[in-house]
Structures are given as C-alpha cells and as structure tokens.
C-alpha cells in the first residue's frame, strides 16, 4: 500500500526515478502475469527505460515477439479499434472522473434540497428567507415531485377502498380521470420514473369491452392508460397486439439497461485513437 498519494508527473530526482522505475516495472509484469493466468489469454508487456536500448519484456522475448507479430498481422481496422495511447487513455480517465463528479454533485444537491424542504416544513425559514432564486426553484421542483408521488399513493389507497358500491364506483371515476391529466402535464420525466417504479400496471382483464370495468382498471392503474390500452386492445385484435408487444418491450428495456449498467462496472472502451497509425 502506498503511504501517500503520488503526484502523477515525471520524477526529477534521478535516483528516486530509477528506483521507482524498477519497482513499478516489476509490479507491471506481475499484473500482466496475473491477468494472463486468471483469464487464460495471450498478453505481453514491453518496457524501455529512459536510457535503455534493451527492453524488459513479459513473459519473454520470443513470446512477446509472437504476440506482437500476431497483433501486427491483424487487419488495420481491428488493430485500431481497441488501441489506446497515452492521450486517449488519459482523456478516457478524465471523462470517467467527470461523470463521477457530476453524479456526486447531483446527489449532494438533492440532499441539500431535502434539508431545505425539511427546514421549510418545520417553519425554520418563514417565507424562505435567505434563499437564492436557484435554490427556491430547486425546492419548488422537489416539492412538486413529492406532491405528485404522495397524490398518486393517496389515489391508489382510495381506489382500493372504493371497490364496494357500483354507484360509488361510477361517481368516483370521472374526477380521478380528470385529475390525472393535470399532474402529468405539470410533472416532468422524473415524476414518471416514480410512477413506473411505484405503480406497475396490473394485468388487464381478458374482456376489455365493457366500458365500466375498463374505466375501473384505468383508475386502479393510477392513470397509466398507455399500458392498459395496449394490453386490452391487444387481446381484441391481433394486428394491434403486435404494436402492444413492441411497446411492452420498449418499456421493459429501461430496467434492463439499468441492470446492465449496474452489473457491468467497466464498459469496453470504444474510444477510437485520435491519431490513427501511419
């Protein structure tokens, strides 16, 4: 383990640089060895010191020559596809770090706004004194988002409670449907993320034609009309069923992509080198 963070720049002191070179070169060879052994792949490393004419090679000169010859024998396109030089590598690393920074900043902004919201609710900031326009806008956005989520949950609970009388059901449906349109037009995409996560569409009935039951399903789904319409009419007509299936696949793609992102921590570098070989 390194005692302290090493400044990543050329070491001016000759003896220190030479010692570091020997140490790190050995470590590099070891890393290559582990990679080749664990993953059962061909690999080679060639290192020329600053004033050396003979390189240090892993695994050995003959094997490295074979690997490099195999690399050279491949088509130019295949060679360049995954080729990286120092600038490309550093740029890629910088992009990754920028992404992490952006994510951390967003999370911190959300936590800050949550704290502000709590202060506002308990009355520590009467009239939101001392906040900038940007902070107020962020707070307003979060309040709208939270309001949407809470209203959705309340409607779901009330719809479940109103399963009893027919008359009650009929009178309850129109206000629900009318209300649902307004929040959708106000709340942005993030709100709908919550919707999809919290209220997955229920399995539709095989007979969607009775209007009363169809409207009740709309109320149950909490306003997710698209899924109900696709699924319901898919059963009735074969040609529309295909479109419904496509929509379902598209909808299902989002969580899969999310899962893929989480599982595959190191995506393949598709970065093409800025300087193609001569």
């Amino acid at each position, binding site marked *: 383990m390194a005692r302290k963070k090493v*400044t990543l*720049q050329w070491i001016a002191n000759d003896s220190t640089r030479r010692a570091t*070179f020997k140490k790190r070169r050995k470590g590099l060879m070891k890393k*290559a060895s*582990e*990679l080749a052994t*664990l*993953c*059962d*792949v061909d*690999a*080679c*490393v*060639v*290192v*020329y010191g*600053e*004033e050396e*004419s003979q390189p240090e090679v892993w695994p050995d000169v003959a094997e490295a020559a074979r690997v*490099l*010859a*195999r*690399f050279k024998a*491949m088509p130019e396109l295949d060679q360049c596809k995954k*080729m*990286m*030089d*120092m*600038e490309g*590598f*550093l740029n890629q690393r*910088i992009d990754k*770090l920028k992404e992490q920074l952006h994510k951390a900043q967003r999370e911190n902004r959300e936590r800050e706004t*949550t704290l502000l919201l*709590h202060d*506002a*609710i308990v009355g520590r900031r009467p*009239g939101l004194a001392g906040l900038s326009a940007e902070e107020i806008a962020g707070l*307003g956005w979060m309040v*709208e988002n939270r309001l949407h*989520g809470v209203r959705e*949950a*309340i409607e779901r609970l009330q719809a479940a409670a109103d399963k009893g009388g027919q008359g009650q059901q009929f009178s309850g449906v129109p206000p629900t*449907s009318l209300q649902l349109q307004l929040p959708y037009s106000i709340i*942005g*995409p993030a709100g*709908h*993320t919550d919707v999809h996560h*919290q209220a997955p569409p229920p399995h539709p009935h095989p007979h969607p034609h009775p209007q009363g039951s169809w409207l009740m399903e709309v109320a149950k789904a909490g*306003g*997710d*009309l*698209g899924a109900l*319409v696709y699924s319901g009419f898919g059963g009735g007509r074969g*040609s529309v069923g*295909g479109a419904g299936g496509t929509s379902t696949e598209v909808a299902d793609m*989002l969580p899969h992509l999310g899962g893929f992102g989480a599982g*595959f921590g190191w995506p393949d570098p598709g970065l093409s*080198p800025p300087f193609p*070989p001569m």
Partner: protein
Amino acid sequence: MKPIENEETRQICFTKRRQSLFNKASELSILCGAMVGSVVFSTFGTPFSFGHPSIDDVANRFLSPPPPPPSDAPAASSGGGAGAGASGSSSNDGSCSWAVTDTIRRLNSEYAELRQALDSESKKRETLQEATGKEMGARMMQLLNANVSELGLAELLEFLECLEAVDGVVNNETANKTTTTLDLEATTTTSGGSSQTRQGLVPQPPMETVVAPAPAAADLQYQLLGGEHSGAADPMAFAAPTTSWSSEFVVDGFEVDDPMHGGGGGGDDLHDVYYALGDFPGDDQNHG
C-alpha cells in the same frame, strides 16, 4: 492461481484487470519517462493495446531492433555499432517524450483538479449526511426519507398538507422574485436548467405522458354522449398507441364528437384518420 472457470466471471475479471494493467502502464510512463507497450488478446481474439508514445512505435522498435534509423547513418560510420544504436534510441526517446509531455502534463493537471473537486464533493456529502442524521428524529424528516408506497393513508394526508403549504410559500417567493427584472432573467435561466435536468433524467416517459391521457378524455365524452357512440369510441382509443401525433389525435377526437357529423359523416372521419396514419397495421382489417 489458475484460470477462472465461470465464463461470465472470467470476462468481468478480464475487463477490470485489463483496465488496471493499462492504468499501471500509463503511470509508469508518466513517472519514469519510460516507453511502454502492452497488448492483450481477449478470449474471443479481440486485441486491446496500450502504448506510449504509441503501441506501433513500441512494437516496431521491439520487433526490428537491429537496423538503426537512416538519419543516424553518418554517426554509425564514425563510431561503433553499439554506440550508434544507443545514441539513436536515446535521441528518439527524448524526442518522443518532449513532443508528448506538454499535452500529457495538461491532461494530468486536469485529472488532478477533477479529483480534488470529487474529494470536496465527498466531504460535502458527509456533512449533509451528518445534518440529515441529526434531523432524523423529527417526524417530517422520516416522512421525507420514507418510500411513499410504504406510508399509510393518514400519514400521506398529513404529508400532503405540509407539502402543499410549502408549495404555496415557494410559489409566492417565486412570484416576488419574478417581479424584479434582474431576478426574472436568473429565474428563466434556472428554469431552463431544470427542464434540461428533467429531460436528461428519463428521455422516454414524456412520449407516453403525451399519448396516454387522450383515450380517457375521448372515452369520457363518449360516455357522456350516451351508449350509441360506444362503438365509435373503440377505434379512436386503440388508434392512440400507434401514433405519435397526439395533437392531431385530439383534434380528430373532437371532430368525431361534433353532432354535425352524424352516422355517415362518422364513417368519413374514421377513413381520414386511417389515411393520415399511413401504414397502419390494422388498416385492411378495419376497412373490411
């Protein structure tokens, strides 16, 4: 140490370790001014390579060391072969290092700055988490952090009242800020940013949002008009999922509701809708 047997695990290990290997190689190059080249073939035969100055330079130098560069020919004639070779290598190495160092130094500085910014964000997060922890005893903070779907009806109603109160205050403050010309500009900029943020979070739901409510509106109107229009309601309802022209759909819906278009007129409108949709999957079936 032996090869990993599980295919998926081995692939993941390969990706991670390859990245780490290249990282170590780049550090060695930067710290010690060394010329480094590394090539790794995946199990599927894909070549991954890293090189400084470039893998081609390293490979060419390694694969064919004997002939010295043509520019050093006079030096070779004047001195010994070994000496000439060393001189040539040193000259090349120095030249390459000098050429790339400025850009690499700039990139390294940028990387260091980003890392410092990330560290400060981490410290800020710890501060915020500490503040949140202090407030966790209060009921409101528990409601704020709880999952909405886990709360009961009474809690939801209480939460709703508090949020609506804050929403009113926020709207008042926003209105006050908007009256000032200078703040108006700032608010507009902030709103733009918020819109971009929303768009960036989830790009697809807006499409469903725009399309989904229309059938409900049309259907409600049909219900109000009576049972005789229920037959016409179905085509309009299932036409919605396959079209992205929501405004056009809404307009057509209103046309169909117009009493002036009776039974015969209704047929013409339906035909126009299908024609406008172009290659509608159920076109033949509906005409039949």
